[in-house]
C-alpha cells in the first residue's frame, strides 16, 4: 500500500512549485509549460537532491516513486487523448504545397541529422545491449517531434493563429506529431520484439487490425455520441464514462500489442469526430484536472529521472551542446529552408522554423518511453531533456525577434484552417497552462 501521507505531500509540493514557477515564467512571456518543465527538474536530483539530499530523500523516497509514476502516466494517457482530439486527419489531406514540404522536411532533416549524430554518440553514451539501428531511429524520432499543444498555445498567446504562418505551422506540427508517433511505435515494436521476426509480424499485423477496427468500428460509435451532443447540447455522465472507458481500453490494447499505452489513447483522440463545439465540450470535461493536477506530476517524475549531475566534465556538456545544435539546426534550419523554397519570405520562413523547433512536453513523453525501454542511457536522457527545455524556451523570444507583429499582420488569412480552430479550441479554457 502506498504511504498516503507521502503521496499527498508529494502532490502538494509538486503542484505548488509548478504553479509558482509557471507563473514566474509567464511574467517573462514564456508559456506556463516551460516553467512547469523547469519546476520538475528543480525538484529532482539536479537541484533539490543536490542542495538537500536528506529532504529530497524524505520527500521522494524511492519506494514511493512507483505510485507517483502511475498517477503521472494516467495523466499522460488522458493528455495524449486530448492531443489526438486536437488533430484533424481530414485537414492533413488538404494541405498546401508549402505545408506538405515544410512538414516533411521538418521530419526528415532533424531525423537524418540525428542519425548522423548517433554515429558519433553511440560509442560514447550508449552500450552494446542497444543496437545502432534502434539507437539512431530513436534519436531521429525524438529530435523530429514538434509539440503541437505548446505550439498552439504560443500561436494563441501571440494572436498568430489566423496568420499564414500560424495555419501552416499548426498543420505541419500535426503532421509531425502523427508521423513521429508512427515512427516511434515502429521502433518500440522493433525493440520489444527483438530476436523474434515472427513476433514483429504478429505485432504489426495486430496493430494494423486494431487501427482498422478503431477507424471503421469504434469511430462509428463515436459519431453516435456526436449526434447525441448535437441533439441535446450535452452528453450524459454514462456516455462520458463510456468515452473514457474506450480511451483506456484503446490504450490497453496498444500496450498489449507491444507498443505503448500512449499510442492507443492518441489514436482514440485522433478518430474522434472533429466538430469544434463537440471537441470543446469533451475538452472541458477532461482538460482542467489533467493539465492542472496530473501533468505537473509527470513533469516532476521526469525531473526526478533527470540528473544534470550525470553530465560530468566538459566532454559530456559538449555532447549536450551538440545535441541542442543538431536538434535546432535540423528542425529550425530544415523548416526555414523548406518554407523559403515554398515561396514564403525569408523572415516568415524563419519564424515557421522557430515554431517547428518547439518540443515541449511531447519530447518529454517520448524520452520517458526511450528511458523505459532502455534505448537511451540516463545521461543521454538528461541531455535530451535539457535540449527539450532549451528549444521550447527559445521559441517565444526568437519568434518575437524574427517575426514582429508588423511582419505577420499583412499576411492575415480570412478563414483559419479547421486544425487551427480545433487547436485554438483545445487551449482556450486552460488559462495558459496547456502543455
Amino acid at each position: 500500500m502506498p504511504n498516503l501521507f507521502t503521496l499527498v505531500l508529494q502532490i502538494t509540493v509538486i503542484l505548488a512549485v509548478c504553479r509558482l514557477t509557471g507563473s514566474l515564467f509567464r511574467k517573462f512571456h514564456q508559456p506556463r509549460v516551460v516553467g512547469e518543465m523547469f519546476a520538475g527538474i528543480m525538484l529532482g536530483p539536479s537541484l533539490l537532491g543536490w542542495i538537500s539530499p536528506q529532504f529530497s530523500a524524505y520527500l521522494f523516497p524511492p519506494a514511493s516513486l512507483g505510485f507517483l509514476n502511475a498517477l503521472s502516466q494516467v495523466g499522460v494517457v488522458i493528455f495524449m487523448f486530448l492531443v489526438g482530439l486536437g488533430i484533424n486527419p481530414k485537414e492533413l489531406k488538404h494541405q498546401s504545397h508549402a505545408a506538405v514540404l515544410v512538414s516533411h522536411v521538418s521530419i526528415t532533416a532533424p531525423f537524418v541529422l540525428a542519425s548522423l549524430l548517433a554515429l558519433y554518440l553511440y560509442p560514447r553514451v550508449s552500450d552494446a545491449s542497444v543496437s545502432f539501428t534502434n539507437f539512431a531511429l530513436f534519436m531521429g524520432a525524438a529530435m523530429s517531434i514538434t509539440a503541437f499543444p505548446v505550439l498552439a498555445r504560443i500561436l494563441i498567446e501571440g494572436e498568430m493563429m489566423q496568420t499564414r504562418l500560424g495555419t501552416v505551422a499548426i498543420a505541419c506540427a500535426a503532421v509531425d506529431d502523427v508521423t513521429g508517433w508512427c515512427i516511434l511505435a515502429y521502433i518500440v515494436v522493433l525493440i520489444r520484439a527483438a530476436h523474434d521476426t515472427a513476433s514483429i509480424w504478429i505485432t504489426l499485423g495486430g496493430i494494423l487490425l486494431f487501427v482498422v477496427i478503431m477507424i471503421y468500428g469504434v469511430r462509428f460509435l463515436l459519431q453516435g455520441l456526436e449526434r447525441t451532443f448535437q441533439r441535446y447540447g450535452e452528453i450524459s455522465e454514462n456516455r462520458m464514462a463510456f468515452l473514457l472507458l474506450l480511451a483506456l481500453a484503446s490504450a490497453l490494447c496498444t500496450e498489449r500489442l507491444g507498443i505503448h499505452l500512449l499510442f492507443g489513447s492518441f489514436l482514440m483522440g485522433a478518430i474522434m469526430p472533429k466538430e469544434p463545439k463537440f471537441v470543446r465540450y469533451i475538452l472541458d470535461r477532461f482538460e482542467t484536472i489533467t493539465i492542472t493536477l496530473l501533468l505537473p506530476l509527470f513533469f516532476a517524475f521526469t525531473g526526478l529521472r533527470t540528473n544534470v549531475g550525470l553530465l560530468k566534465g566538459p566532454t559530456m556538456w559538449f555532447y549536450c551542446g551538440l545535441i541542442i545544435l543538431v536538434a535546432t539546426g535540423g528542425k529550425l534550419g530544415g523548416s526555414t529552408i523548406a518554407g523559403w523554397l515554398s515561396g514564403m519570405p525569408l523572415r516568415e520562413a524563419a519564424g515557421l522554423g522557430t515554431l517547428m523547433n518547439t518540443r515541449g512536453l511531447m519530447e518529454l513523453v517520448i524520452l520517458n518511453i526511450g528511458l523505459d525501454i532502455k534505448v537511451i542511457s540516463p545521461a543521454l536522457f538528461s541531455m535530451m531533456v535539457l535540449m527539450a527545455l532549451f528549444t521550447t524556451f527559445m521559441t517565444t523570444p526568437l519568434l518575437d525577434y524574427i517575426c514582429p507583429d508588423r511582419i505577420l499582420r499583412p499576411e492575415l488569412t480570412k478563414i483559419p484552417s479547421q486544425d487551427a480552430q480545433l487547436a485554438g479550441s483545445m487551449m482556450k479554457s486552460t488559462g495558459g497552462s496547456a502543455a
Partner: protein
Amino acid sequence: MSASNRKFVLAYLLLVILPLIGLVGILRAGRTVTAPVSIDGLWSLRVDSAQIDSLPCGKALAAIPDKTMAIMQSGKTFVVTIPGGPNLTAAGTLEGTTLRAALVPARESRESCAVGSELSLLASVDRRVDSNVLTGTLSAPNCQSCASVGFQAERQAPPTSKGGH
C-alpha cells in the same frame, strides 16, 4: 506540370527523398560502430565477509542482507549504488572491459562509513559470458594497512528488455 509544381517536386526530391536515401547509408555505416560493453543492471556480490570487515565502510557493506550492487551506465561512464547499504556516491569509468570507480561516503553517512573513508573499485567484465560476470578488487587508497579484497559479481537480470540487435 506548372512551374510551381516543378519547383515543389524538385525541392521535395532534394530535401526529403535524398536525405532519406542518406539515412539508409547512415544506418548501414552504423553497423560497423561498436558501443562499450554493457554493465548496466543489478549485480549480486560475492565477497569474503571476514576480509571486507577490514576495509573502511566494510562493516556496513558486510551487513547488507542481499549484497547487491546497482550499476547505472551511460556509455563509458557509470554510477554505482548499493541498495540497502551505506550511502555512497560512486562514479566510475569504463575502458574496454575494465571498470574503475571511487566509492565516496555521502555527507550524511553514519560513523560506520565516515567521510574520508573512500573505497576504490577496480574490476573487469568477462565478455565471453555475455558480460554477466564481474571480477575485481575493493581497496582503500587512504588506508595504508588495509589489504585489497577480491570480489565477484553476477548480473541478476540480463538486459533483455533493451533495444537489442
